């Protein structure tokens, strides 16, 4: 019996990366812009998505939402459906993140061709979603003031893969100890020049800048 070493050097999550590419092709073919919204539980993912929906519906932008949840509850997708946009719920069965295969399956149920914007709400978690590409155009993290200013230092990976950072619940800043300079220094080390919007989904502060940025990305709004 002979023993031998076989060199492979393949990214462990390469299969997920391939599926993410396939998702991107489908989304691009539909001329739709897509975002992956990540955050810890309670940072305001659903409020942020709802605020975005309400603002963009006035502009006649057609939106769909894929909702990832670890438990078979439809609280979030019900809220989205109530807002009048199609929602597909993914129940991950306890898994801590969405992966490209799950999103691909959800796309089968989504009228993607008629959409201008697809928002994917990932599972509330700052660790696992960072490792799995979904095929969306932008990775967005919502970090909220009550979570504390040390989050970039504690969860570096999620900050490194971001295209946009939303700092939410800015209305709570006067009541909490949150050192914005310390927070931003951590972000800068991990992701220099990261596009950042400071907002409050409760008061609406700062949302206009985010919405202008987003609208400029949606192909069908360009003349």
């Amino acid at each position, binding site marked *: *019996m*002979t*023993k*031998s*070493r*076989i*060199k*492979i*050097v*393949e*990214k*462990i*999550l*390469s*299969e*997920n990366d391939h599926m993410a590419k396939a998702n991107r092709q489908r989304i691009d073919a539909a001329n739709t812009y897509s975002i992956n919204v990540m955050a810890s539980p309670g940072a305001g993912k659903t409020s942020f998505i709802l605020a975005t929906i309400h603002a963009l519906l006035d502009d006649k932008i057609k939106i769909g939402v894929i909702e990832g949840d670890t438990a078979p509850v439809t609280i979030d997708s019900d809220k989205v459906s109530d807002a009048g946009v199609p929602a597909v719920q993914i129940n991950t069965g306890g*898994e*801590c*993140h969405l*992966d490209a295969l799950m999103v691909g399956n959800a796309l089968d149920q989504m009228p993607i061709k008629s959409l201008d914007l697809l928002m994917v709400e990932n599972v509330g978690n700052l*660790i*696992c979603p*960072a*490792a*799995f590409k979904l095929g969306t155009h932008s990775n967005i993290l919502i970090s909220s003031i009550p979570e504390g200013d040390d989050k*970039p*230092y504690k969860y*570096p*990976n999620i900050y*490194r893969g971001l295209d946009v950072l939303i700092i939410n619940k800015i209305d709570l800043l006067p009541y909490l100890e949150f050192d914005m300079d310390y927070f931003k*220094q*951590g972000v*800068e*080390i*991990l992701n*220099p020049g990261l596009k950042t919007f400071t907002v409050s989904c409760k008061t609406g502060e700062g949302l206009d800048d985010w919405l202008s940025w987003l609208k400029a990305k949606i192909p069908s709004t360009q003349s």
Partner: protein
Amino acid sequence: MHELSVTESVLDIACKYAEEAQAKKVTDIYLVIGKLSSIVDDSVQFYWDFISKNTICENSKLHFERIPATLLCTECDQQYTLENDLMPCPNCGSAKVRVLSGDEFNLDSIEIQR
């Protein structure tokens, strides 16, 4: 914990290459993991022992090579290694840095018997 998904991916890749090489058995799996990639070695080994049963990789051993995180300051060109905490350039204090290594998350090689 996404170690289960990661471990399943390792098994898929290892089995694919082992079959291509017409291996009878896989004895060792060599993984290269950067310090910036979050993965718990013990947890991967735990799942591995379960999911590799009745595959060509059954009873194989996982080896983890850890690559340190090296950063380069783009202001003063200082190169430094992250020990534990995320920190700005120790030379000039700038936060404008670039990651040189530590991102790795690869199945590097496998040892097989023919």
